[in-house]
């Protein structure tokens, strides 16, 4: 193993964790802007050190495990969530040359697989807490995330067909002319919705809907174990955003600026859009969420696969 590869493996999780921590502050500030209030602005310049203060506080909190919980799984659940998100980043190429395993020939499938395993964190947290609200949250999460995984996989198929590869670098390379967001606008829409549901973010955060379930699957969690769920959620937002950038927005392509800057800019833009959705949209009911998935998104993504295939076949012949 070469020195740059090793340093990339060590640096990537640290950078992602740092970014996810900063993102908690960015989100609260942006929500403040959109909802016409201040948000955290006292600690450090512009409230910048709020994330540090929160982190320090959460580290020193009592790390309590309920006596009625299944101890082993209760402790393992947040770790699973964190691990799967961080592992998925391995396959994301920042630029042509950088990234840990950006050239993996099944890179996209690897990321989908890791996102699929991420369901366990939420489901097991709900089960092992051994309490009603957590269990309900966990069951909602299982149904929601498995359903939306299907649409996510199907919507990505259009991109894979056009690029002719699961390799994420090849997919970016195939967007030399036009970004896939234009020919694949349908797939893009489905992918965005599935991405929100997959990271269980507002407006699709029914697994932790606090108006009915307390805090859902992490009701019994406290201290840094709760913090890990929290940070993993923000890392998940960054993951989906960078995936959207790679698949639909041309990855590192763009004029004048260096490729890495373009990657970061586009990913940041999508992250801000995620936060805007949270600020702007109300939460649907759970059955509405599932109906939207199976009755609208599934036919749409199947149609997208069919149309893309037909057009590609016609163009080839």
């Amino acid at each position, binding site marked *: 193993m070469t020195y740059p590869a090793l340093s990339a493996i060590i640096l990537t999780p640290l950078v992602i964790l740092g970014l996810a921590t900063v993102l908690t502050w960015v989100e609260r500030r942006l929500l403040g802007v959109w909802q016409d209030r201040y948000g955290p602005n006292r600690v450090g310049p512009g409230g910048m050190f709020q994330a540090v203060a929160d982190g320090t506080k959460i580290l020193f909190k009592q790390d309590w495990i309920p006596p009625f919980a*299944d101890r082993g*799984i209760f402790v393992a659940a947040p770790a699973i969530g964190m691990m799967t998100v961080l592992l998925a980043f391995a396959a994301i190429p920042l630029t042509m040359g950088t990234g840990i395993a950006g050239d*993996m*020939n*099944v890179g996209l*499938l*690897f990321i*989908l*697989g*890791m*996102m*699929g*395993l991420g*369901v*366990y964190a939420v*489901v*097991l947290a*709900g*089960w*092992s807490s051994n309490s009603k609200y957590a*269990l309900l949250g*966990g*069951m909602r999460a*299982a*149904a929601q*995330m*498995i359903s939306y*995984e299907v649409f996510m*996989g199907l919507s990505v198929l259009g991109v894979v067909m056009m690029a002719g*590869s*699961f390799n994420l670098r090849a997919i970016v390379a195939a967007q030399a002319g036009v970004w896939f967001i234009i020919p694949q606008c349908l797939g893009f829409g489905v992918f965005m919705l599935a991405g929100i549901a997959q990271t269980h973010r507002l407006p699709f955060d029914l697994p932790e809907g606090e108006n009915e379930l307390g805090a859902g699957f992490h009701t019994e969690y406290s201290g840094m174990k709760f913090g890990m769920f929290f940070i993993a959620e923000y890392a998940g937002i960054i993951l989906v955003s960078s995936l959207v950038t790679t698949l639909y927005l041309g990855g590192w392509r763009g004029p004048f600026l260096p490729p890495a800057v373009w990657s970061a800019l586009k990913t940041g833009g999508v992250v801000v859009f995620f936060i805007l959705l949270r600020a702007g949209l109300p939460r649907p009911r759970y059955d509405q969420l599932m109906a939207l998935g199976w009755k609208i998104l599934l036919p749409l993504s199947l149609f997208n696969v069919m149309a893309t295939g037909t057009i590609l076949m016609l163009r080839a012949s």
Partner: protein
Amino acid sequence: MHALALLAACVTVVGAIMVITRRVAVHAVLYLVVTLLALATVLVMLGASFAAMLEIIIYAGAIMVLFVFVIMMLNLGQPDSAREKEWLRPRAWLGPGVLATIVCAELLYCTSPLSGAAPVPAAITVHDVGADLFGRYVLVVELVSYLLLAGLVSAFYIGRNRAGGR
């Protein structure tokens, strides 16, 4: 590479044993997930990375989650663990033990001549899999799709709302 493959294989076997001997159903399912992941690692080392990823996505990421989902709905408790313990008496091990020994012996017999020089496996790409599925095995694929369609229709029949009268 060889040591890594051996390690993954060991994890697979130990995980599989733990699946059988766990008394809490969720623990058994989790060990099954570990087994499947280790199996995926072995597949990657054999060059079949596409099959490995499908195993992670479909088996570990979807089917096993459904298992956990069902177990959560059943709300198993202490009596179930006790019953499970009852089922795992030494006598119950006899039959499966004999069968497993036979299979192990066969495996050892088959692999022993190959132990000299292990062949380096060629990587199987997604293109190869796709071409095979829709070329050589197209009939099987169509038959399986019929089976899935039948399953879908029967699931719809069982799950439809009968409040409005049949």
